[in-house]
């Protein structure tokens, strides 16, 4: 097989020299084109490929503070994963991640969709108002977290003051210091942060729905709700899939908001896989278990990510059809 190819090439180049020059030129051309991609490929290999491999390696080793000085980190197999699975925090972190993610996405989506439908109709100032709503999404998450921490303060927070003014509560709900209220508190803050993103993408999807369909439905006597139910909702499905999947990928790895508002506490009430991985690596310097939790997160994110890519591809295919 190899001989055959070698012979073939030899025969061809031997028989006529210009084509050899052409082959070199083609090679040079290919190299010249590839050169544009080289920096990006190198960057991805060095800053994604290596760290990912390194992370897997750390998760299989007894990597401690001392390892930084001695350079020694003995292999321990899957012991770090065992440590993580046996940790009573594991179940809690999974459950918190799940509740945080599902509740955040559900409310972000419903509110975002309602706003998108509201802003889909043209009215004076509509575009300006919609643009203003983007602001919370562009702010540093640490800023949003800080603001919510201040608003949810038990004694001086505006949330409790408003609840008292409306006679909904009499005392001071300890939003951030009670294990019962802390998770709902960070979820509320995160919903607020995510609404603009849902609004923008869903609004983009709505503008793609042909107006003629609404007119036809209206002629057939369909009311507002029926038009939404039978025209908007089905046509919006591909965009819905994209928003939900992207939301999942983003929300699973939320870090800043929780760190700033509760730091994972009180009593681990808001500890998710992400914050737990941080605590393990950077507070307890147990880099092995920290990396193990991180790898579990990758698996989760990639599974959702692949589902997203599939739905994005089918929706793109539908668009081009």
């Amino acid at each position, binding site marked *: 097989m190899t001989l055959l190819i070698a012979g073939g090439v030899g025969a061809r180049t031997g028989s006529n020299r210009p084509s050899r020059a052409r082959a070199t030129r083609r090679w040079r051309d290919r190299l010249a084109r590839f050169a*544009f991609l080289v920096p990006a490929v190198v960057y991805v290999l060095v800053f994604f490929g290596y760290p990912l491999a390194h992370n897997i390696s750390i998760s299989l080793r007894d990597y401690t503070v001392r390892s930084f000085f001695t350079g020694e980190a003995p292999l321990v197999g899957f012991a770090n994963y065992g440590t993580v699975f046996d940790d009573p925090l594991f179940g809690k972190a999974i459950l918190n991640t799940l509740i945080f993610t599902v509740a955040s996405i559900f409310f972000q989506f419903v509110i975002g969709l309602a706003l998108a439908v509201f802003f889909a109709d043209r009215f004076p100032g509509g575009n300006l108002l919609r643009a203003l709503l983007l602001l919370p999404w562009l702010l540093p998450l*640490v*800023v949003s977290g800080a603001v919510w921490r201040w608003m949810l303060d038990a004694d001086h927070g505006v949330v409790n003051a408003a609840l008292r003014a409306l006679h909904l509560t009499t005392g001071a709900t300890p939003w951030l210091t009670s294990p019962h209220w802390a998770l709902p508190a960070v979820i509320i803050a995160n919903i607020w942060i995510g609404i603009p993103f849902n609004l923008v993408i869903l609004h983009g999807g709505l503008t793609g729905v042909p107006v003629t369909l609404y007119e036809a439905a209206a002629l057939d006597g369909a009311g507002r709700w029926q038009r939404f139910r039978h025209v908007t909702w089905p046509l919006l499905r591909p965009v819905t899939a994209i928003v939900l999947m992207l939301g999942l990928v983003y929300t699973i790895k939320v870090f800043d908001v929780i760190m700033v508002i509760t730091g994972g506490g009180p009593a681990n009430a808001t500890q998710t896989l992400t914050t737990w991985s941080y605590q393990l690596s950077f507070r307890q310097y147990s880099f092995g278990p920290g990396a193990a939790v991180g790898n579990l997160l990758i698996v989760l994110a990639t599974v959702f990510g692949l589902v997203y890519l599939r739905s994005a591809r089918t929706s793109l295919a539908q668009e081009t059809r």
Partner: protein
Amino acid sequence: MKRWGRTAIGIVIVLVLLFPLYWMVNASLQPSGALLKADPDWFPVHPTFTGYTSAFSGQLDHLLTSVIVALGTVAVSLLIAMPAAYALAQLKIRGGPLFVFALLIVQMIPGIVMANSLYTVFSDLNLIDSYTALILADSTATIPFAILVLRAFMIAIPRDLTEAARVDGAGYLRTFAAIVVPVSRNAMVTAGLFAFLFAWADFLFGVTLTTGSTIEPITVGIYKFIGNQTADWNGIMATAVLASVPAAVLLVIAQRYVVAGVTGGAIKE
């Protein structure tokens, strides 16, 4: 008339949803004593700028660090993403689609995982507490996004335009510099803007790759400010307002680029 009714409802919605921002500004202008009353003042009755003066004196270094890191991230991201996007959009390259797929996948990797391993890598290289580490780490998040946004734009550049230059004897580099870059200005603004906003807002890499002994971005500054038991909310909220300025300014002056980035990043990828 009915349409103006919509406007009224829209204004109410915006007021409700942006209330937290108002509350931030409100607290940033009130003396700390007034903030600790049982019932808060809904307006800054006795406005004071002490919060801002303390924010400036205490956080100026952090703001500067964030500016340097954000600008550095923009530069690195565009330098690497522009040629890559050109190659992927205009030059047929074997393995190109595979690379695009890889870019989509790496965007899914949780930041904490990157922080975990980049910390060990950078400490081996003695780069903890350096601008280099922060810029390179932030670029892991911005480069894939920048390539995808720029590529989506460059695919739409007519081949006639780039191929005419090639026929005239221009090499790939000349074509890139003389035609592709100028034509892609808008997409570059979008990609650069998002790189800036990401690096400016970054907290995770800031808190893991710095120790606080030399440089520290503003987000980490705010985080530590809150952690202080004194809880000077006036100063904290003033710092938060300062940290929000770039986002607010960019939204005002570059709104259409922002919207292009949000939708472009999500759907066209």
